């Protein structure tokens, strides 16, 4: 691939006080190329457009200017920071590419890999971190839509995740547009496009974003496509007419409770059959709604806030199988009690902390977030208050680790008091009241024993 910009060189741009050091080309496609750059010592990324693409998307500059003016919805977006136009000196050096423009954005952290790596099963990631990534994805779209923007081209290719933390980055923000605007060149990506957009009946907007978001959530959580079941197997060549039939003309969700025509095949679609039962009905219903009535009625699609709420609640009830160590979610009561999805042995009932807002299963790694202590706070996983930890030497004894902020004041049942500093842990036994920075946390009588 020939490079649009000279690499390993410093270029000057209008409005930039210092020259921009252009490093290697990170990738490219039919729109342009992305370069690693450095501005006054700060590593950033620069996307530079092909002039031919700019001609096809005349609204691009206005969209980018508006995105830059309003700022990033949250820190998970690789959001445009500044438009760059070459100054006269650079224009002379760039030739034809100098007639175009580009934009600066944050560089993707090296720990974040393309979500395709997850879908392809090429990374090791825990169920917890997949759920966290799904939460951050919902939160990102929540914040984006709240700011008055829609994304338009949600797909596996635009999402990056850090397998070690479940953190995400959302890239390719140059199709982002003000809600209600009818401009823009992109319609979406097959497999993620809402049916009304794929059929040409609507332009991408918030409602189609909600559909695409659900499709991406499904791929994250199941490593499967929501519409690839028996009906897919009936299509020998998955070409354009085949995709149109599968995703737009007659889409049937593989787990549609009312229409069993498109169930996953036990040989071809194993991923769906293994992963779907891991999730509780509260989460499954959100997919059934979006991919059922929501196919034709956009008002029935799961909202970003509903995703956040449901995913945060699911994370509250993760626990490890005592026999095989596998991560299990608290599912709906089953006859004969819960069983581990992997070793099929019974899971003993787990005690739960009853909090001002919700319950958290007492199991290693589960966290108490600020929203658990204050019903008025929205779900947020970025500022955890405490984490459930096991005592290093006494099996079966659990405690809470202070994850940051001011010292906790702990009151024991016998009236004695002590402080817990960030990084320290205190046991959950004995009735106690923990004054955290985010609100009071009662243990003791608020422990729900199975």
């Amino acid at each position, binding site marked *: *691939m*020939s490079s*649009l910009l000279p690499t390993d060189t410093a270029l000057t741009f209008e409005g930039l006080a210092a020259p921009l050091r252009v490093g290697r080309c990170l990738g490219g*496609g*039919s729109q342009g190329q992305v370069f690693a750059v450095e501005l006054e010592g700060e590593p950033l990324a620069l996307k530079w457009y*092909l*002039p*031919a*693409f700019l001609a096809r998307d005349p609204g691009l500059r206005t969209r980018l200017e508006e995105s830059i003016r309003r700022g990033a919805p949250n820190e998970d977006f690789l959001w445009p920071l500044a438009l760059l136009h070459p100054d006269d000196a650079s224009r002379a050096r760039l*030739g*034809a590419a100098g*007639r175009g423009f580009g934009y600066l954005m944050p560089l993707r952290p090296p720990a974040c890999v*393309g979500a*395709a790596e*997850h*879908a*392809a*099963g*090429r990374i090791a990631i*825990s*169920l917890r971190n*997949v759920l966290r990534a799904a939460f951050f994805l919902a939160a990102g779209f929540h914040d984006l839509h709240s700011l008055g923007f829609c994304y338009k*081209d949600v*797909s*596996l*290719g635009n999402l990056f995740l850090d397998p070690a933390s479940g953190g995400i980055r959302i890239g390719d923000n140059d*199709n982002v547009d003000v809600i209600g605007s009818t401009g*823009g*060149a*992109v*319609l*979406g*990506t*097959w*497999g993620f*496009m809402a049916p009304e957009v794929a059929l040409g009946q609507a*332009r991408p907007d918030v409602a189609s974003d909600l559909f695409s978001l659900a499709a991406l959530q499904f*791929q994250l959580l199941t*490593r*499967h*496509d929501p519409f*690839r079941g028996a009906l897919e*197997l009936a*299509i*020998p*060549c*998955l*070409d*354009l007419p085949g*995709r149109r039939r599968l995703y737009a003309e007659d889409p049937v969700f593989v787990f549609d409770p009312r229409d069993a025509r498109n169930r996953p095949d036990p040989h*071809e*679609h*194993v*991923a769906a059959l*293994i*992963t779907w039962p*891991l999730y509780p009905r509260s989460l499954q219903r959100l997919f059934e709604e979006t991919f059922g009535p929501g196919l034709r009625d956009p008002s029935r699609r799961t909202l970003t806030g509903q995703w956040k709420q449901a995913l945060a609640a699911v994370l509250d009830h993760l626990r*490890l199988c005592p026999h095989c*160590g*596998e991560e299990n979610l608290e599912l709906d009561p089953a006859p004969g009690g819960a069983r581990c999805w992997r070793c099929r042995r019974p899971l003993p009932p787990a005690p739960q902390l009853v909090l001002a807002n919700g319950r958290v299963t007492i199991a290693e790694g589960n966290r108490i977030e600020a929203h658990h202590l204050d019903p008025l706070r929205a779900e947020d996983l970025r500022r955890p208050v405490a984490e459930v930890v096991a005592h290093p030497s006494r099996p079966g004894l659990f405690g809470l680790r202070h994850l940051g902020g001011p010292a906790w004041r702990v009151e024991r049942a016998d009236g004695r008091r002590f402080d817990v500093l960030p990084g320290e842990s205190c046991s959950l036994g004995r009735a106690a009241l923990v004054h955290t920075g985010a609100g009071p946390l009662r243990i003791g009588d608020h422990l729900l024993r199975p």
Partner: protein
Amino acid sequence: MPFPDVRLASRPLHFFYICDCSGSMQAEGRMPSLNQAIRQSLPGMAEVARQNPEARVLVRAVSFADRAGWHIATPTPVEQVRWTDLQAGGVTAMGEALELVAAELRSPPMEARALPPVLVLISDGQPTDDFDAGLHALMREPWARRAVRLAIAIGHDADTDVLQQFIGEDPGLPAGEVPGASGQMPRHPVGRSPRRPLPASNATTLARYLQWASTAVVGAASTSASRLGGGDDGGGPVPLPDLPPTELDPLEDPDPIKW
């Protein structure tokens, strides 16, 4: 405690290079240029395949001169392909090459389910055997009719008529119509369309077209590509992506080696 060891279901995507190795390919370094262009295009194809877990990209290559034969006979995962140089010499058995490909697109050996195959025919001359019979054999196969068929015409002596027959009619362009004559903004610069033979008059253009076929087209056939409004959705098995810039575009660097 990892996530279950499962992966997105995938379909094979068969990619065929169909390469002219006739004696005229010895002229002006065409053969080394083609070898080099294909070799250089493979990492990009492997990267696109990596980003598209829904597709298992499998590569094969046919060469044709006095006879046609398999250069890479086994469908090989793109990341495992090691390109060995083709040698030029002989005439242009293009029809036989198409028959070889036709036999592979029959079911079986074709799988019951796949993504649209991608066939890239590269030639600098005119067929010397029964091209019509070869094309007829190819187009009898449903998988060939549903394939993305691209052709690259090297130099000025390539028979663009037979290459166009291989591609099929350009659905966006009624017979005899000059692109852009309808008064509408042409999607591609005049004379260029992915559904017409792509003229490679120099090594740089050849490399760009092969890179484009190996990356953008493979991406489109395996569905990762974003759909653009007003784009090339009609007619073909997959919406074809924009062509890369060439010397017809202002971005082209002047290349001293003209054919």
